[in-house]
């Protein structure tokens, strides 16, 4: 079974701060990490390979330093890593990103399953995974919380819904996006870390892929950001102190009208 895991390197949003003077993101000193949801995608990709045999290839599109994220993925058990990086890709929105990743996946050619995290923690769009499956015209199942079994080139999976979950059967090759519930990612082993250090990362630029230039990067992105601003801070709250029964009474009175 050949698996492709798509990951994204993101700034650790828990460290992002706003410069109150300039109203811009302070990215300095903010660590880059693998998107939290992609950790579950990597783990699932590695587990499937361990169970069914084959190979797990991890792929990312991003700046040259995204190579670090790929090495981390190798440390966690991925076999091969591909960095898709070119200045021509800069400014890609989800359409251009899914188009570019699709071109790279077509170049890899052989795969049974593509696994993506549910969404990335910086953009939170959840659009690139389904975008790739649309470009490739393969079946997709989003929000997968469990792979029940893979047999006869068919996967049985559980997809989370608002009310519970659905059990779906889908032929391979397919694309799934995964949620946290699917597994518990492992800690990289010492052997894995050694391997990651020595691993050769394949690097593809725009010219290595069969793509139309007009569909890349900023030019190939239908959406454009016209304004960025900080949300209005929440007004200062009211603390009810005193004995618990008094405080509870005051709070209930404050909320009574909204509840009725």
């Amino acid at each position: 079974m050949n698996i492709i895991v798509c990951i994204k390197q993101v700034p650790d949003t828990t460290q992002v701060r706003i410069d109150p003077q300039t109203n811009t993101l302070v990215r300095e000193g903010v660590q880059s990490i693998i998107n939290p949801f992609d950790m579950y995608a990597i783990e699932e990709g590695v587990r499937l390979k361990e169970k069914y045999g084959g190979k797990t290839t991890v792929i990312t599109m991003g700046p040259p330093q995204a190579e670090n994220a790929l090495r981390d993925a190798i440390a966690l058990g991925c076999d091969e890593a591909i960095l898709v990086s070119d200045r021509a890709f800069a400014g890609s929105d989800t359409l251009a990103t899914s188009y570019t990743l699709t071109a790279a996946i077509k170049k890899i050619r052989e795969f049974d399953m593509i696994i993506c995290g549910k969404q990335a923690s910086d953009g939170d769009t959840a659009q690139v995974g389904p975008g790739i499956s649309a470009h490739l015209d393969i079946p997709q199942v989003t929000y997968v919380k469990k792979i029940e079994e893979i047999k006869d080139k068919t996967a049985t999976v559980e997809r989370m819904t608002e009310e519970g979950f659905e059990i779906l059967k889908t032929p391979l090759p397919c694309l799934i996006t995964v949620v946290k519930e699917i597994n518990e990612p492992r800690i990289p082993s010492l052997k894995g870390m050694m391997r990651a250090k020595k691993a050769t990362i394949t690097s593809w630029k725009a010219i290595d892929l069969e793509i139309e230039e007009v569909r890349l990067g900023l030019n190939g992105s239908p959406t454009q950001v016209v304004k960025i601003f900080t949300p209005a801070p929440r007004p200062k709250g009211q603390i009810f102190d005193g004995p618990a029964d008094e405080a509870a009474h005051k709070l209930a009175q404050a909320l009574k009208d909204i509840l009725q």
Partner: protein
Amino acid sequence: MNIKVIVDKCVGCTLCVKVCPFGAISMQGKKAVIDLDKCTLCGACVETCKFGAIEIKRTSKQTENIQDYKGVWVFGEQKKGVVQPVVFELLGKARELAQKLHTDVSCVLIGHNVKARAQELIQRGADTVYIVDSADLENFLDEPYSKILTHLARKYRPEVLLCGATFIGRALVSRVAVKLHTGLTADCTGLDIDPKEKLLLQTRPAFGGNIMATIITKNFRPQMATVRHKVMKEIEVDASRKGKIIEETFDKPFFASRTKILDIVEEVGSTVNLAEADIIVSGGRGMRGPENFPLLEELAQTINGAVGASRAAVDSGWMPYSHQVGQTGKTVCPKIYFACGISGQIQHLVGMQSSKIIVAINQDPQAPIFNVATYGIVGDLFQVVPLLTKEFKKALNK
């Protein structure tokens, strides 16, 4: 134009003739011929052709005939024949946008035996309801639903297409946007029309809510967005509103799905659906164990709320993952959010800080949750929560 039939590859199967929404393809001498006056470069034929015999080269940096795109569309998500509440919220917003654009509002309803719902959609703001009804469409499936919505958008060319940022919505329109080759903005919390250029201004949180970004899709149509639950206002039901109901028919191949549903499991407890809840009562590490969550359940029941949990509580196995609020769980924005024994780590805040009212109950007065709280009680939740339940029962005469 940039579309052509590769004559050597065309076998004369006529699939493209049938699928073209604009009647632009005919057969001449067993080969497909495209009438360039009618063709809009929508791409339906390219996808349908099994032989790769039709090609579109995209050099233009905008949707062809962009000025022809008119109207605001809402995807009418339904489950088991019940239209989801977020659709009504979207219809309310769509009315406001349509007024500013001097156009009308349409709703697309895909399902089985759903025609009876159309009137309600009209009463809630739709001028036209497009219905696609088939037993094959009873439950959402990515492939047929996206094929149908794509086809309708190509045929009728709406300038705006809105969809709830639900599990279904996000999976569906991501695929549709790629097929239509247009922009899609996820998880919007604000929508407006730019008065000068008449473009859809799509505002959404990014970087875990640390910043807000306003996004436009200037040169491509439709302008597509998914919208969060509970942020748009539905309009009042107007029983006298009139509208058109149009039933669209499709050939069988449109209903085909490689993915099949084996079972739909609804988890016990009506309180799980956090996204639609007006009130959420969440517990964190301070709950100390699963045996204490009934305290929150009782409070939630009293005020008609759902029960949520922080990552700490879920990772400890006290609550199922479907209840988790925060970065690796769900993003919610209820009217009132109770954080009980939750310290307020940034990972939790990004999932709930757009709630209208936040109530924090925590022993530690320094807990960061108090920075975002509208109301706070510093105290022992095991004391405060039962008292609160009692007070609410009294105040609400329960």
